[in-house]
């Protein structure tokens, strides 16, 4: 089992990812747009969380398969707690989780996934 803490994420991290990845949906950096869509403010791209987790997974070996499902949003100020645990089903198979830890101490699972790395 490995666990890595990354963050706290800032609005600048979201903007930087928009530039790196090319997804400029304003819901991820413009508060007015996010609120008009019914959210309290801008939230992170799912692929930002998935991408951060993928960097942790590369420490385990060469990836063969990587799968993620987004279950809750990530907000500026959150620390991401990324963990990978051997699934026991096969060599090189891992169950993945990302939790967000908010400034007020709230902890919530935001992503669940799985990976297969070259054994």
């Amino acid at each position, binding site marked *: 089992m490995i666990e890595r803490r990354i963050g706290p994420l800032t609005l600048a991290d979201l903007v930087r990812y928009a530039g790196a990845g090319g997804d400029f949906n304003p819901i991820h950096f413009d508060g007015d747009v996010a609120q008009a869509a019914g959210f309290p403010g801008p939230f992170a791209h799912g692929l930002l969380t998935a*991408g951060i987790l993928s960097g942790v997974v590369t420490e385990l070996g060469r990836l063969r*398969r990587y799968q993620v499902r987004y279950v809750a949003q990530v907000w500026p100020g959150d620390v991401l707690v990324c963990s990978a645990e051997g699934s026991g089903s096969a060599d090189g198979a891992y169950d993945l989780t990302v939790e967000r830890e908010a400034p007020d101490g709230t902890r919530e699972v935001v992503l669940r996934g799985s990976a297969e790395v070259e054994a």
Partner: protein
Amino acid sequence: MADARKAGYTWPSYVIRVERGKVVEFARALHFQNPIFHDLEAARAQGYADLPAPPTFSAVSQHYGPAQSLDDIGVDLRRVLAGGAEWEYLADVVAGDELTVTPRVAAIERKQGGRGTMDVITMESEFADEKGQPVLRLRTTILEILGEKA
């Protein structure tokens, strides 16, 4: 809302070049600690011919032209949430590679969920190398939220 008749729709193929600078920028934006994504010697020590593409590097294909516009299938971007994604890595992809991307709509399904009525749209992209061999398959699910909770 998503046009259900667009299931099976294929966007025109396009080419992306995996550039070293973009790999470094992308890995830094994701807070990577692993040196193989910015240090050529570290990458070569792991058997890579150049800096490897990060696992979710397929995201940068959005920089390359309007090929995969959601407008084409009637989806309102303001109502879209990411559902999930799956990547299948068939061969190493490293800086200097040119990949041909072929995206298609695999399925459009109307569902009732915790957020009310939604269309679940599944898209698949194949990334092929210069010889036409597939090196990466990506399956992405997005949710178009259509209405209030019942």
